[in-house]
């Protein structure tokens, strides 16, 4: 792996961008700033927006495990997000707003998502990578249709609202809850990708045949990746449902998956933090552009701009924003915070 030489090279090139050398400093600084936000601004809409960015960031990071670390494109990731959200919504709507039921939702979500990820993964990952994209899409659509038609339970596209435990109703409290969840998941996913299993996944991404010849059971590792990504996505779904206190089939749509795809690609794949950055940019841009839509209806079609930006990034900046910044810093083709930190 060429990554070994990264620290030495980084040493040579003195801060074109004065980012700290240690990959831990920036995240911790950022975390401290985010902890301070509710103390500085009383704006509820700002807190809500940031909470949404955190949750979608978790979702996008889980997507990065597939796209950035395993090298496979899923179009059905919203299925896992939606399962978490529906699990939470249905359990709270049918029982009562007690904190204990939340763990039931999380546990049930993990169980269900694991089973689904294994079945869908087994069907699709044995085949060429492109099949994975379409087969995940087909299954996500299947469950979307079930959610749409099974109106007695889900109330279809109209959705249903429910009460959440009193503790979680306070916006400031929930801001911190989602921030803590985000931090925990960052730590967990970094541990995962730095683990031997994570290294094998990256080897598969770089050269699948070679990994296979080295004796690794590629299918098994891809299935692990699929399950981990699915479970983390279901956590994001749970957190989303708790924030919105409302679930409809919107949580299962392809658009949700494409959102994660856009966030990860724009921010930078294979870095985890890139997915977070992408979530921040997308969240802010959506907020800002939908304000502009009131000025002129052309901004309702803002996805055109996003799509073009995205195509440009895929064609000319495959590392996304974060990857490109890091390349400028280290004049290296495929740097990644995670690998250099792990060695």
């Amino acid at each position, binding site marked *: 792996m060429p990554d070994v030489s990264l620290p030495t090279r980084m040493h040579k090139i003195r801060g074109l961008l004065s980012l700290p050398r240690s990959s831990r400093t920036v995240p911790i600084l950022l975390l401290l700033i985010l902890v301070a936000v509710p103390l500085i601004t009383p704006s509820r809409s700002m807190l809500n927006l940031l909470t949404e960015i955190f949750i979608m960031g978790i979702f996008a990071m889980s997507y990065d495990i597939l796209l950035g670390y395993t*090298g*496979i*494109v899923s179009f059905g990731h919203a299925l896992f997000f939606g399962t978490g959200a529906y699990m939470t919504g249905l359990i709270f709507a049918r029982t009562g707003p007690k904190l204990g039921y939340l763990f039931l939702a999380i546990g049930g979500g993990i169980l269900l998502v694991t089973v689904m990820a294994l079945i869908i993964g087994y*069907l*699709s*990952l*044995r*085949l*060429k*990578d*492109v*099949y994975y*994209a*379409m*087969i995940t*899409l*087909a*299954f996500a*659509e*299947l469950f979307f*249709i*079930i959610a749409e*038609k099974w109106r007695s339970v889900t109330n279809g596209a109209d959705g249903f609202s429910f009460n959440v435990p009193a503790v979680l109703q306070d916006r400031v409290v929930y801001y911190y809850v989602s921030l803590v969840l985000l931090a925990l998941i960052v730590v967990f996913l970094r541990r995962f990708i730095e683990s031997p299993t994570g290294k094998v996944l990256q080897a598969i991404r770089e050269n699948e045949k070679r990994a296979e010849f080295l004796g690794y059971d590629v299918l098994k590792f891809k299935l692990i990746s699929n399950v981990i990504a699915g479970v983390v996505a279901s956590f994001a779904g749970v957190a989303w449902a708790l924030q919105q206190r409302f679930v409809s089939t919107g949580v299962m749509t*392809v658009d949700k998956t*494409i959102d994660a*795809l856009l966030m990860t*690609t724009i921010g930078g794949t294979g870095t985890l933090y890139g997915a977070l950055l992408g979530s921040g940019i997308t969240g802010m841009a959506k907020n800002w552009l939908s304000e502009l839509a009131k000025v002129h209806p*052309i901004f309702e*079609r803002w*996805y*055109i701009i*996003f*799509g*073009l930006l*995205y*195509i440009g990034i*895929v*064609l000319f900046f*495959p590392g996304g924003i974060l990857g490109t910044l890091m390349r400028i810093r280290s004049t290296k083709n495929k740097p990644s915070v995670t690998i250099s930190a792990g060695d």
Partner: protein
Amino acid sequence: MDTFVNLTLNGLATGMMIFLVASGLSLIFGLMGVLNFAHGSIFMAGAYSGVWAYSKTQSFTLALLAGMAVGIVVGYLAELTTVRRVYGKPVAQVLITTGLMLVLNEVLKAVFGPNIIAVSVPPLLAGSWDLGGIIIVKYRIFTIIVGLVVAVAGHFILTRTRIGMIVRAGVQNQEMVQVLAINIRRTFSLVFVSGAALAALGGIMMAPALGAVNPNMGLENQMLAFIVVVIGGMGSFVGSALGGILVGLAGAYTAWVFPEASLAVNVILMAIVLLLKPNGLFGMGGGRNA
């Protein structure tokens, strides 16, 4: 018995309709191995512009031509600007064509508006014949005929003509064909554009059968088309036609027995085929990851 015959006829017509949508994907994905996620958008571009042309001219022939022309133009532009850069890179293909899909869908909404546009079957093809309980809808027969023509012509061109031979050889070994002084890039462009034209044809054929066009029809039909190509097998034009018929028939029978499951039956059918024969029913063996 009448019910059975009616269901079979409906299933056949639906199957041929699905095949028309899938035929373009069968070329682009099944043969060239490019997973074009913008396929549904090109299909939709054909449907919308065809419907627009039909409402302006009242001529279904002109609508078909206009739809296909738009498909060709969009396909050519897509190939020229983006798809050309990612031949042989599957993940990049999926990513880039997804971007194309997003942009195209929004452009379509900006041009034709985000609402459902109703469209009726042309008078010549409207109505049905009643043969003692067996009802034959004229437009369905028309669909079956068009589908058969496309299937036979496509199969003939791919297997019996020089250009078809070059395409198949180029898929097998691009460099070798290049060495023989054949511009394989241009041939691939031609295949991509032909696939786009077929997608657009599928779109404008589908519009009167559905009774309306809507901005969600692209992805739905693209998925159906993909399922058909997977079931039929990669690289087999006839396989896609049979896959389409299989999906159409399965859908029609389930809709009669258990309507709620008719949408799920496609995905289940695909799952079964993938479990038993990962290369599809008539595939050339390109599917399995080896």
